[in-house]
């Protein structure tokens, strides 16, 4: 017994020593921890960005750490903050914005941090559709835009040729007609989609200039309520449910789960993020292209603009002052036209600055790859209205899951569209009140 106690205390001393060594080690070199959610190929690209930055100077070393998918990364950072071991920079997806914003004691607003560190931040260089999502009502930039995308309509050009579809569809009736032709040509289904709440509710609303909720989609205050249970949203839900039965549409799961349906040519069209460009290019053995999202011509004559998805980089408080100088330099490097243009062309994320867009144009990227500027054109189609600026709802990660659930219930016929959307709004509002209560 004595012996084992001794052994345990020895082990504990050893562990403490090792921890101590680690701490002194990280003090010696100014490391900047960057937690991100970019797996696979994009993870390698993130590493390259960090390596390239580290090569430009010797004072700081940015260390990217992959922490799993978006929700896992955000949860990890929050847990780390509670344990006072938070990273310097964390990549948070757009629906986490309200949660991060409300955490005033934890977040160091990027604009303030850049100013405090004496690094110039030119907000006018960023695309309005991107930057407005992450500004306070007063216009202060809270986090650094990094990877932004928007949903587009991907289509299989070979399948279209086989089915005799001449033009990519522009409206929902045209999508239905094209799908019927695809079905006749032997395809299993016409179209599918992923990230369905984002594509079919959030973007559907902004595209048709419809409000998702009161208070400018939550931008103007925490006491907001959902209003997306309107006739237009119910109509598209009802139509998709009808199409599921006739296989004009076939559901294939949340997020990117239905990607194989498209890349295996089971369906001919796929509505999802423009950032699947890299993935489709790698997997598809056919010619493909992208076009703008479809709309109902009797709801809106000309579509408004779509909203972004993707993530931004948030800076967390609680580190030595000197570290933030390095972070500011890194942010500055990250948003430079060269880095952004490269990132955009490799991944399909939209270029977040006008300069990066111009640079890509000059390099002839869009001529060589027709359709790759669909996303950016769609985002900046019109000046954003309060309905199409974006959304800022608390607890939205959870609410999005509720919307997903209710949508699935419509697709499999357990609920009709009208009831499902009413329920989604009811359940969502409950969570909004909860968020308001916790963040008074």
């Amino acid at each position, binding site marked *: *017994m004595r012996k084992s106690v001794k052994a345990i205390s020895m082990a504990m001393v050893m562990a403490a020593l090792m921890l101590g060594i680690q701490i002194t080690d990280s003090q010696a070199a100014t490391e900047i921890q960057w937690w991100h959610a970019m797996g696979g190929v994009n993870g390698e690209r993130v590493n390259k960005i960090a390596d390239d930055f580290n090569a430009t100077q010797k004072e700081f070393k940015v260390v990217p750490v992959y922490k799993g998918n978006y*929700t896992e990364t955000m*949860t990890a950072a*929050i847990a780390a*903050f*509670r344990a006072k071991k938070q990273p310097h920079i964390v990549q948070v997806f757009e629906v986490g914005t309200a*949660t991060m914003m*409300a*955490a*005033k*004691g*934890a977040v160091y607003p990027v604009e303030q941090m850049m100013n405090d560190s004496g690094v110039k931040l030119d907000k006018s260089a960023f695309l309005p559709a991107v930057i407005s999502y992450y500004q306070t009502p007063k216009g202060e930039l809270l986090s650094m835009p990094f990877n932004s995308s928007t949903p587009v309509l991907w289509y299989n050009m070979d399948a279209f040729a086989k089915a005799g579809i001449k033009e990519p569809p522009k409206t929902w009736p045209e999508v239905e007609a094209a799908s019927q032709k695809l079905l006749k040509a032997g395809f299993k289904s016409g179209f599918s989609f992923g990230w369905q709440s984002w594509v079919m509710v959030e973007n559907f609303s902004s595209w048709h200039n419809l409000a998702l909720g009161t208070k400018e989609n939550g931008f103007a205050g925490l006491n907001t309520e959902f209003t997306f249970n309107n006739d237009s949203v119910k109509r598209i839900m009802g139509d998709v449910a009808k199409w*599921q039965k006739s296989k004009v549409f*076939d*559901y*294939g*799961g*949340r997020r990117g*789960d*239905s990607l*194989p*349906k498209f890349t*295996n040519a*089971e369906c001919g069209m796929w509505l999802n993020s423009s950032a699947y460009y890299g993935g489709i290019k790698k997997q598809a053995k056919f010619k493909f292209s992208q076009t703008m999202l479809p709309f109902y011509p009797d709801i809106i004559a000309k579509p408004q603009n779509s909203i972004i998805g993707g993530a931004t980089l948030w800076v967390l408080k609680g580190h030595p002052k000197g570290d933030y100088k390095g972070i500011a330099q890194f942010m500055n490097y990250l948003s430079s036209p060269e880095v952004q243009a490269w990132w955009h062309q490799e991944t399909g994320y939209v270029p977040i600055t006008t300069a990066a867009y111009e640079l890509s144009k000059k390099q002839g990227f869009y001529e060589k790859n027709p359709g790759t500027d669909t996303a950016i054109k769609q985002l900046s189609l019109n000046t954003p209205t309060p309905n199409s600026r974006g959304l800022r709802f608390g*607890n939205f*990660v*959870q609410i999005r*899951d509720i919307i*997903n*659930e*209710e*949508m*699935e*219930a419509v*697709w*499999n016929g*357990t609920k009709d569209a009208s009831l499902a959307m009413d329920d989604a709004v009811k*359940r969502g509002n409950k*969570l909004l009140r*909860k968020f308001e*209560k*916790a*963040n*008074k």
Partner: protein
Amino acid sequence: MLKRTHFNPSPLPYLLVTPQILITIIFFIWPASQAVFQSLLVEDAFGLKTEFVWFDNFIELFSDQIYFNSFGKTIVFSSLVAFLSLGTALILAATADRIVRGATTYRTLLIWPYAVAPVVAGTLWMFIFDPTLGIVAYMLDMMGYDWNHRLNGNQAMALIIFAASWKQISYNFLFFLAGMQAIPKSLTEAAAIDGAGPAWRFWTIIFPLLSPTTFFLLVMNIVYAFFETFGIVHAVTKGGPAGATEIMVYKVYNDGFIGLDLGGSAAQSVVLMVIVITLTVIQFRYIERKVEY
């Protein structure tokens, strides 16, 4: 004098149980009490603002229809998993007990799935049944059955029940087999001489004598279905579609770690804890009485 030496209090027994008690306190009592405390709070994700709200989280929970749905799903899921895995294991063990040749190989093969982690098991099943890429889904499709567990809630439920049962069969098999081998051969032989066939012998002799094992396994399987199946659900369905497979333990995770609603999630885990404690108590007090040791 003799008495005193005999009852001289020795610190040794206390010392010997200390590690166990420490482990229980650190890994069970402390987190459990933390969960109880957390369930009385409303807190933002970062822990910057905390408000003590008494039982608001519980009141909200019990006025939520979705929570009761999840409760119902859990009952269906756990009872089917327990029934299926116990039933299959019993049949397999009964047959394994009778074979002579290649018995070791047969047993080893049956024990293998137990070495597979729940998440890995889930991933295997997910690949086999993937509506687009899965081999079984493809075969079902050829037979004219439209398999899409991402759309159809019943299919999703069936899938996780199969995956969870498959994983647990080995464990049950092992205990059943050991239990059967502990039954004296003379009993079954005597019955055989009296003219009882294999099935009759099984129901009148082996099954009743196995009851302590069955009872133990029933408790273990219920606990398994309630808690350890998280990995399978996470890998296969993530609680979907439309919450059709959101069993209680998954809802705790979803609301707490995805939704960052720590108070509500803690309240659910407290309810879950109470349910499992109650179930175990009931099993030990009422069912155990009927068990013959």
